[in-house]
């Protein structure tokens, strides 16, 4: 089953990436073939005709709607998580200090994530709650649980099947940034979205 489904899934995901206009770092290769706009225009009469491209390039001139972006959807789940985060298909929600309410930015991030998740219904999702290290261990585990569930509930209200989503709180146990600056603390206060099979 899996062998048959995967190519289909890949195509589906590319389509999704295009449809939803997600932020993408993939470059579109610029057209470098000869510009044949001259065929119906005046001027450039001295240009030596390029016999190899005259006929075949007509299609480009007529129809530019088949431009495409090709991105590889990693089959390895770990690699997929990395790529999905890098390209912004899946975005984490960040929190203020000792808070478990979603800011406008956090809601926006989860909205983007929900779109991708709804269009890729085969993946499970784990929402990890994380805290900065300034509190106490046990309280932060509870706070992380609250953050993870707030994010889960929001994804559910956006139409992601909550049965796909599991939560886990790591409190301050697995910081993303071990520093003690405000930016480090900010990085560590989040609901982190992790795709699974």
């Amino acid at each position, binding site marked *: 089953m899996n062998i048959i489904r995967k190519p289909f899934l890949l195509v589906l995901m590319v389509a999704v990436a295009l449809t939803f206009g997600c932020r993408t770092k993939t470059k579109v290769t610029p057209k470098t073939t000869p510009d044949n706009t001259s065929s119906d225009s005046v001027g450039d009469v001295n240009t030596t005709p390029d016999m190899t491209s005259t006929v075949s390039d007509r299609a480009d001139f007529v129809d530019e709607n088949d431009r495409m972006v090709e991105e590889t959807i990693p089959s390895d789940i770990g690699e997929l998580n990395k790529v999905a985060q890098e390209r912004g298909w899946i975005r984490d929600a960040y929190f203020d200090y000792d808070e478990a309410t979603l800011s406008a930015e956090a809601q926006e991030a989860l909205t983007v994530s929900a779109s991708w998740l709804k269009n890729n219904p085969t993946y499970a999702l784990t929402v990890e709650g994380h805290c900065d290290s300034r509190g106490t261990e*046990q309280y932060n585990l509870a706070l992380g649980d609250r953050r993870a569930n707030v994010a*889960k509930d929001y994804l559910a209200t956006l139409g992601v099947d909550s049965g796909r989503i599991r939560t886990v709180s*790591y409190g301050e146990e697995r910081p993303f940034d071990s520093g003690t600056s405000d930016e480090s603390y900010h990085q560590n206060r989040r609901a982190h979205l992790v795709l699974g099979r």
Partner: protein
Amino acid sequence: MADQKTGSSTSASILLSLRALAIAVTLTVLSMQTSAQQEVAADIDPSKAVSLVKIAAPFPQLAAGVAAGTVQQGFFSPLTRDLAFSEIFQIVPLPPNVPPSVEASGRAGATAFLKTDMSTEGEEYIVEARLYDVKSRTILLGKRYRGKVGALTRMAHTVANDLVRYYNGKPGIFLSQITFVSTRDGQKEVYLMDFDGSNQRRITSHGSISLSPEWSPDGEQIVYTSFARGTSDIYIVNRRGGGRKRLETGVGLNISPMFSPDARDVAFVGSVRGNPDIYLIGSNGSEVRRLTNSNSIETTPAFSPNGRQIAFTSSRTGTPQIYVMDAEGSNVRRMSFDGNWNDDAAWSPDGEQLAYTSRVGGKFQIRIMSPNTSRTRILAGEGSNEQPAWAPDGRSIVFTSNRSGRWQLYRISIDGTNLYQLTTEGQNTAPSWSPTVQ
């Protein structure tokens, strides 16, 4: 650690003398001062300070063929460390080249003489210990112990426990153990050590995050949280590391587990839809009950020693504070009012005091409160100091501190003296002190 392990009886007795002097001075000063300081003085029982028993406890008399080095390391060093730690005895050194005797002890100023004799029989060591009253020359206590070389330290702790029990009627803590979490082998795992930091060993190997171990009332089991399955779950394991079982709570989070004093239940923090509350589950896995029902965060439950109350942390007023409720969940009252972050409440063994982690000026400190009066005091120290746990005799506390740049466990007497570092390897947190085991 090396220095601490090889401490001689001489240095121990000097330490004790200084300590006795310090207490005497403190008491004198305090008696002239106002009630604010008497809050601290209340923890120092004057009768204890003046009643240090001057004891001569010389190196054992060895039968032919018994290796002195083995006896020193396995038996004599732990015995003298125990006596020095007891806050009951002051060790009186006997002059060298004089055979230990009741008379020699008396001349050296001791009122008690601990005579020990060590012999071997096959692979077994036999210790005979006799406690003499110097004045009357009578034997107050006589015990005989036998066991292989690995049991020598246990024999030493047992002798010390017997001596403590003889003088103050309460069992000593010298066979008690501390369970804790350490990263020394990579991930956070659960470890054990003897009360003095010796004999540190790992009892879990989840290869995952394991947290907050707590003893069963009989000292035979440890309950803790681990992420071994990817989610946080409650496990119970024998103290030697075997017989592990997982408690199916049916709810999420599953942190801060703690046995009830009758061992029937485990209190823990469960969560349904992101609402952490205090729950109970039978320690055999039966019947989950919810004790708190609040929209705020409730965490870190701690049964009082008589089992009738549970202290916990709640953010219901906006910041984490310590509360106490009856064990069925009713009659909730707020206990902590100092500062904007309090957690990790721990009852003293007599139920008279609560120690907890309290934010003071951007760092955490151990605060000790008498619930009856709501008065608190701080066991101040460098760095952040968190997660207090009481010794079974209530005279000292073990806690974690990052004062050295890493999280290490320290023991301190509750009057703020006798600070002693227990761990050195890795990051060490979440200590829990066993009940007294014999």
